């Protein structure tokens, strides 16, 4: 038998093994890529994590980021004690009752029981404010109340106080569908957000859509790409080992693609938040969510 034939035989076996391993690798990748079919039930209440998308959506189905996480991560959100976001919610419960500022008031002085007064508030954030002639995020609403009505100091965007309070208020809308306004006065801001979403930026020349629309469900190295919905913010992220805001997340993404990030509370991020929230219209508010 000629030498060449033997070599070919070995290569042939190796090639087959190679194909088999590639096939295995690819099939594992596909298995991990689909959002899983688990249902989120928190303290007996079912939370909608899969809905029919709003008109104009590029997706057939909208999935919450919860669906893209491993079952162990999902379990951490299904129990309010296991959920590591709750210590800050507890802090906010206390802050709600704390008198601060020159007006001698606490949040509860005007808003009384948060479960009643704050119900639904998170579902349509950012929201148009006539007095300011622009939309405001939940953080901006809180600081507006603090400075103009309580005569108290602003809270920093990423402070424990602000994270806790936005989580506590968000919690009062948990289970309710996201319903941000995108027409009328909001339209130019929504449109600006949409432009930002689709514009490539940074040294890596990528856009939000490049990952979260074109490749949602696929693996980017070891991360499972979601559709980029923000219905769970503020969210406890393992990567941060603490709760974080939407704008922090936006900033992180921009840094990853080596773009100069916008600032928290900037017009760009407010516009982007409106647009991204609208892409998740119909999903339940999950605040405070647990993510990777």
């Amino acid at each position, binding site marked *: 038998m000629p030498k060449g034939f033997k070599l070919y035989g070995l290569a042939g076996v190796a090639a087959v093994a190679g194909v*088999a*391993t590639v096939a295995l690798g690819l099939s594992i990748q596909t298995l991990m890529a689909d959002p899983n079919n688990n249902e989120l039930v928190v303290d007996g209440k079912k939370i909608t994590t899969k809905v029919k998308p709003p008109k104009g959506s590029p997706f057939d189905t909208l999935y919450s980021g919860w669906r893209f996480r491993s079952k162990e991560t999902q379990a951490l959100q299904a129990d309010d004690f296991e959920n590591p976001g709750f210590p800050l919610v507890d802090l906010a419960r206390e802050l709600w009752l704390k008198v601060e500022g020159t007006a001698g008031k606490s949040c509860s002085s005007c808003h009384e029981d948060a479960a009643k007064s704050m119900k639904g508030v998170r579902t349509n954030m950012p929201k148009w404010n006539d007095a300011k002639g622009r939309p405001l995020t939940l953080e901006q609403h809180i600081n507006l109340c603090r400075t103009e009505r309580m005569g108290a100091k602003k809270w920093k965007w990423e402070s424990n106080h602000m994270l806790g309070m936005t989580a506590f208020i968000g919690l009062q809308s948990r289970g309710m569908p996201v319903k941000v306004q995108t027409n009328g006065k909001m339209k130019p801001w929504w449109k600006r957000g949409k432009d930002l979403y689709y514009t490539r930026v940074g040294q890596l020349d990528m856009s939000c859509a490049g990952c979260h629309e074109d490749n949602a469900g696929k693996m980017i190295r070891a991360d499972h790409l979601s559709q980029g919905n923000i219905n769970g913010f503020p969210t406890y992220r393992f990567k941060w080992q603490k709760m974080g805001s939407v704008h922090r997340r936006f900033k992180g993404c921009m840094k990853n693609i080596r773009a100069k990030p916008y600032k928290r509370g900037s017009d760009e991020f407010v516009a982007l938040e409106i647009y991204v929230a609208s892409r998740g219209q119909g999903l339940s508010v999950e605040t405070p969510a647990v993510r990777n």
Partner: protein
Amino acid sequence: MELTKRELLLLGSGAIATMAVGLPTASAFAASAEVEKQIAAFAGGAKIGSGKVSLTAPEIAENGNTVPISVDVESPMTKADYVKSVMLLATGNPAPGVATFHFSPMSGQASATTRIRLAKTQEVIAVAKMSNGSVFMDKKVVKVTIGGCGG
């Protein structure tokens, strides 16, 4: 006979796919000297048996900095016969010691759950010491994925 370009490509990508899946081999998790030392010190000369201890860990950890882990040890948990301590070791971490649980007959059940940090794919070990000095062990390999686009 030369390998065709296609065959070379398949061989190469096969190797990459195997690396990506990260199939562990037994030799990859040979316990280090430090781990052996800590187990020996904990066991206090007793022979290490298998069984009785059950370590629960995810097959793949979504994020190595928060990995939920549970340990359960079979025992009547009476004053005469109970689990004294269970030591958790992360064999691939820069420092393998993670936590040591101390039970008592009042525990009722020798179970504990916590969340641990794993620096990379590795074997996690739980060693249990009984009130009569006997020692048992369980181990699990946890795959830790590194690299992504986290923001």
